[in-house]
């Protein structure tokens, strides 16, 4: 395939130029102007488009095994390539949890059989994600776990957390923490603020996130483990991460599209699609988080794609499960929240979606997250001007739980190549 005339942005190499990309044999063969294509080569006109390394999402839930009615690896990776993602890191809160090398191998087998993009597994740090007994971290890493996390819950016990960090440090992997002090969030359904007070719903205060990050930063100092704050939601948390990074600690943080665009007002009519963990907070938090992306404190974007079935989200607000889908709406929403708001430019946005998560999970060692001749041809072509409306029919994944339903979004992937194969080509968008 020849991708002709797009703006090639590869933050890892600093490349930002209008050029052509020739792909063959699963590899990027050449990058250059006015490349000749061998006869019969499929040519994609990318003029006006961004040509980027395949997007990588370090935080998704594909629900397999155990919750296949919400999503499967097949449907989730379908949503991924539709949204321009070529690599996903899947969280271990499946049933059973991904906490043993056998389960890691099983899920990788399923991904090989049914996946449409690259699937990487994040293994649990403790058995069953119960936060008590340390898992076989060394064997899990050897089986292919690219990171560790008990996502869905924090490891609340500081002693267990320190052990896990020490063991993960040896593997060179990163520990990703879901930062939530469970003792401060009993019965919590949404952000502890005015809307919760009016609706009579239990509140999830910022302090529950900040306390865990404060504590963990000390443990990172003691263990030397790379540590990643998942789905940061509080302006106070941003300051803790900023301080830790300033002291040279290996601490990173990610932010979701919804924490960049929505406040707790989205819950005001008990819309369960806006129920998410950590919760949507207030305008000041959004402001602080955008600034942190702008000044390089937050270096990774992750959707926390969390599908739930309609009947589950149709329950009352307190009973409904937390989470929203994100893979297919992510790029346009990030573009709106970060680029069109003036926080960062497009090359930086691409970096946050490619080389940064690749480095976080060690995928750069496989040549992922960058576009270079001889490297794997994971490529995403994005039309930044393409406007679309989020409707159930527009979405490819299995679930529809998004508070962005009906929203007009600008910027969408039009071509997704995984290992040189066209996995998504948006009809009508391009000739």
């Amino acid at each position, binding site marked *: 395939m020849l991708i002709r005339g797009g703006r090639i942005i590869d933050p890892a190499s600093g490349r930002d130029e209008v050029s052509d990309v020739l792909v063959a044999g699963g590899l990027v063969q050449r990058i250059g102007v006015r490349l000749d294509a061998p006869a019969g080569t499929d040519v994609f006109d990318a003029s006006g488009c961004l040509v980027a390394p395949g997007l990588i999402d370090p935080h998704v839930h594909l629900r397999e095994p155990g919750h296949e009615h919400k999503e499967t690896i097949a449907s989730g990776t379908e949503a991924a390539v539709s949204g321009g993602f070529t690599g996903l890191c899947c969280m271990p809160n499946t049933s059973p949890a991904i906490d043993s090398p056998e389960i890691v191998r099983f899920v990788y087998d399923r991904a090989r059989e*049914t996946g449409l993009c690259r699937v990487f597994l994040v293994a649990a740090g403790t058995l069953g994600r119960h936060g008590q007994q340390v898992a076989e971290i060394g064997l899990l890493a050897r089986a292919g776990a690219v990171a560790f996390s008990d996502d869905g819950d924090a490891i609340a016990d500081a002693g267990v957390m320190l052990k896990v960090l020490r063991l993960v440090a040896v593997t060179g992997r990163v520990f990703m923490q879901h930062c939530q002090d469970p003792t401060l969030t009993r019965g919590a359904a949404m952000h502890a603020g005015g809307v919760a007070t009016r609706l009579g719903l239990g509140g999830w205060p910022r302090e529950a996130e900040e306390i865990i990050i404060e504590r963990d930063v000390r443990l990172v100092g003691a263990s030397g483990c790379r540590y990643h704050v998942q789905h940061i939601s509080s302006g106070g948390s941003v300051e803790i991460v900023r301080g830790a990074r300033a002291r040279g600690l290996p601490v990173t943080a990610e932010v979701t599209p919804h924490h960049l665009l929505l406040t707790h007002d989205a819950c005001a009519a008990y819309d369960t699609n806006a129920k998410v963990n950590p919760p949507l907070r207030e305008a000041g938090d959004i402001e602080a988080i955008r600034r942190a992306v702008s000044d390089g404190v937050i270096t990774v974007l992750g959707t926390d794609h969390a599908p739930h079935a309609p009947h589950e989200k149709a329950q009352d607000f307190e009973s409904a499960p937390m989470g929203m889908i994100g893979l297919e709406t992510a790029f346009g929403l990030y573009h709106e929240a970060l680029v069109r708001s003036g926080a960062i430019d497009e090359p930086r946005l691409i970096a946050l979606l490619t080389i940064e998560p690749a480095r976080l999970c060690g995928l750069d060692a496989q040549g992922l997250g960058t576009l270079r001749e001889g490297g794997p041809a994971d490529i995403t072509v994005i039309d930044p001007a393409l406007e679309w409306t989020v409707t159930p029919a527009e979405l490819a994944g299995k679930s529809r739980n998004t508070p962005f339903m009906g929203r007009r979004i600008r910027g969408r992937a039009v071509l997704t190549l995984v290992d040189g194969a066209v996995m998504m080509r948006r009809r009508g968008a391009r000739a």
Partner: protein
Amino acid sequence: MGPGGDDEPGLLLCGVAPPRRWCAPRWSLRRYTSVMTSVAAPPPMRTQSKRDLLELSGLSGGEIREYLDMARGFVPIANRPDAGRSDLRGRVVANLFFEDSTRTRLSFTLAAHRLGATTVDLAGPGSSASKGESLSDTARVVEAMGVDAIVVRAKSAGAARIIAGAVGCPVVNAGDGRHEHPTQGLLDCLTFAEAMGRLESFDLSGLTLGIVGDIVSSRVARSAIAGMTALGARVVCVGPPTMAPGGLSAIAPGVSVTHDFDAVLPGLDGVMMLRIQFERHGEGPASGAAAGGGGSGLTGSLREFRAFYALTEARAAVLRPGAVIMHPGPVNRGLELDPGAADASASLILRQVSRGVAVRMAVLARLLGQGA
């Protein structure tokens, strides 16, 4: 509608010839479309615009006055079975009570009967609700049996809104979790206005009502705050910070919060005492806008609570002349309210119960489209 402008999804997924390590060997468009059509979108949520009464928050003073004007007209006949009306003859009101209730259910039943309607009752235990059926499915089933209005009480905040979104008939919220109890709020406004001599205008400006006790757990308090402030009253929330967090002052204009009952007591025109809702404390109610969760007690001890926040006879004696004592019930005598205060001439507690029937008549008559 895809960007291509046709009805097909604007997406083409292609299989790849040699199966690669990470991807499926084949992937067809047919499979893709079947995935999409197999997913049913949840029905769109209806809002209060249909004829429902889900909350007082958001209603204007004018809208609340319309209910109260109608209720005032029903007061003379509300408690006289021989004076029944036939406004709603042939109509059926379903009481869906997924949570225990005595006075509210009886009150709605009597209100329906006074207007000539019949009632059917469905209570939580033993009903399909305990067999795993969802709220909205249960409501649809009940509606399909041919009822004209649904009165619902449920344990979770927002439940009445879910039911209102699922059915076509009017829905009245009879209490949803810690959210609201709008007919209680209306009867509190009616009773308070009557005692203050504002029965004609329902203009409560210049009056101050203290709401005392476990406010975070209280749907009665949220409805009273919305109703009273919409009619011009000021509301002072009184309790320990775990029960009366500062954030309450932001839920409506004219609301303030204090932790010092004795300091505000002499300036109040009325006090509404609340029961401590121990049964809701396990859910972390204090965490609303307060400093955070915590599953156990919201107060050090009942002795301590009484020392600062009970309406004892001594405190009742400090009330200004003409000030009134209200309580939504059930009263825990000797805890938040001493017997001497509960039975004092200033106490409106039984009148609240009585006005409840008139208010619920007005709500049913109004939502079912019959004038008073």
